[in-house]
């Protein structure tokens, strides 16, 4: 190892040690010993319902924590209790609606946009920009059905593969590695 490299590595090591040891200077602001509020736990329950709807145990556990939270500010605990009952009855959709109501949010579930006859007679719903923004948007899965533009892109991509393969074959090296190796061996024997 050259002296220059040794000096570089020593300096680097010293910098790492100084950097790591100065960690205390930047007090950790992320962790908190304060127990989560009921509103936070309700929000997490909704997120669990959205992300892991099949994990009933986690959802129930988080909802129980919300019910037992000391800080109930910002959450309607009656609605939270009703949501727990709905969850026990296996109605996760209803439970989620109640939880969203409990922390002052409207329903965020993706609903059928076509109105029922009753809804047509009712007052018009507010325009999207007037309605409350959703708390937890559902996962967005782009449509897998192919339209005309998709077929054009597929055809162009397939053409690129074909033309590229043709050009790669045309521009291939004159000798393969195996033939070069064999040639070198033959030359040595001669």
């Amino acid at each position: 190892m050259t002296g220059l490299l040794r000096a570089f590595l020593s300096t680097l090591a010293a910098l790492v040690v100084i950097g790591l040891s100065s960690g205390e200077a930047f007090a950790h602001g992320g962790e908190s010993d304060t127990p989560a509020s009921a509103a936070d736990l309700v929000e997490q329950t909704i997120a669990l319902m959205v992300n892991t709807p099949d994990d009933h145990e986690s959802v129930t556990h988080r909802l129980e924590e919300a019910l037992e939270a000391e800080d109930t500010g910002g959450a309607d605990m009656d609605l939270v209790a009703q949501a727990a009952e709905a969850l026990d009855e296996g109605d996760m959709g209803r439970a989620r609606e109640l939880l969203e109501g409990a922390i002052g949010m409207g329903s965020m579930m993706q609903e059928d946009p076509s109105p029922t006859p009753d809804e047509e007679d009712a007052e018009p719903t507010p325009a999207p920009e007037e309605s409350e923004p959703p708390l937890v948007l559902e996962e967005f899965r782009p449509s897998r059905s192919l339209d005309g533009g998709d077929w054009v892109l597929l055809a162009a991509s397939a053409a690129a593969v074909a033309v590229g393969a043709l050009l790669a074959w045309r521009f291939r090296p004159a000798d393969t590695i195996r033939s070069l190796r064999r040639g070198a061996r033959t030359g040595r024997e001669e």
Partner: protein
Amino acid sequence: MEDRDVPAPVPQRRRGPGRRLIGAVDERLGVDALRYPVPEHANNLGWSLGGLTAFTFVILLVTGVYLAQFYNPTPEAANQSVREISTDVWLGEFTRSLHFWSANAMVLLVILHLLRVVLHGSYKRPREGNFLVGVTMFALVIGGMFTGTVLKWDQEGFEALLHNIEVAYLLGGLGFWLTPEAAANLPILVRLYSAHLMLVPGLIIVLLVLHALLVKRHGISAHPSIPGRSRELDEPFTHHLRRVGAFGLVLLGFLGLLSVLIPPIIGATPVEGIEVTRPPWMFWWLYTLENWFGLRAILWASVGLGVLLVLLPFIDRGPEREWRRRPFVIAAVGLVVLLLIVLSLLVLVTEPEQHL
């Protein structure tokens, strides 16, 4: 007459307009310097992996510029703006999908390129410096993948960011830039966006130029199993570029097919306090280690792998480059690769756990 003493003009072959154009450009920009000789074996697929990695980088730049016109990097709007790119922007879904698949391809190709370099001992003297440049670019590619994951601002990206912040705290002063305290008046998402757009690609471009110049300076390394006395020809580097371009066209087409047929999903908007997602595949090995040993394992394992890569050319210093004649180094590298694969596959049978 004096005319008799004038030598007859040498007949010149008329050049086509394409050649004349190249000649005119070369006269002014010196592009002919790219015709430096490289060994014939450089035109094989295995030796074109570095070029293909650069090709995916170009795809990422083009698609990234388009996506940046519509992406909103504020936490309140980021996830929604990605959805709108997919639904409202002309070719938005395809562009985002192509960006996503190209990023994955770039990581895969850079790993394969690295393995090819290790297998053939291409990092040996005098190419140690260029190997370190390459390792730095590898780290930047992973950094680009990480920041890109965070930018979509779904539960997966948010959890990735929280892990990153916690690891930054563990790093102390060295990780300060990656903590929210570094610029309290600005959401960290915005800073990561600027890093994704400028810092990461900017540094990759600078290092890519240096990498290419050093390749020219030292030449493409000889194939260890082809003796120097073989009849292997030299070809101009432009022929290497030509073949990389052909392979790149195949790759682009393949990525285009993937982009149309399997567009990436956008996860639910994030909520703090839950851990329910798995990271992208290149971080799976770290995810398993975190499940076993806690958050610190992410830091120590990443640093450990980085140090091993940096030290490799200084540990394996013998002149031998044929892999069969370097059994200890190849066995050690093989063990590390096997370990990374096993740790990654374990994610498939591991349930996400709460760490933060």
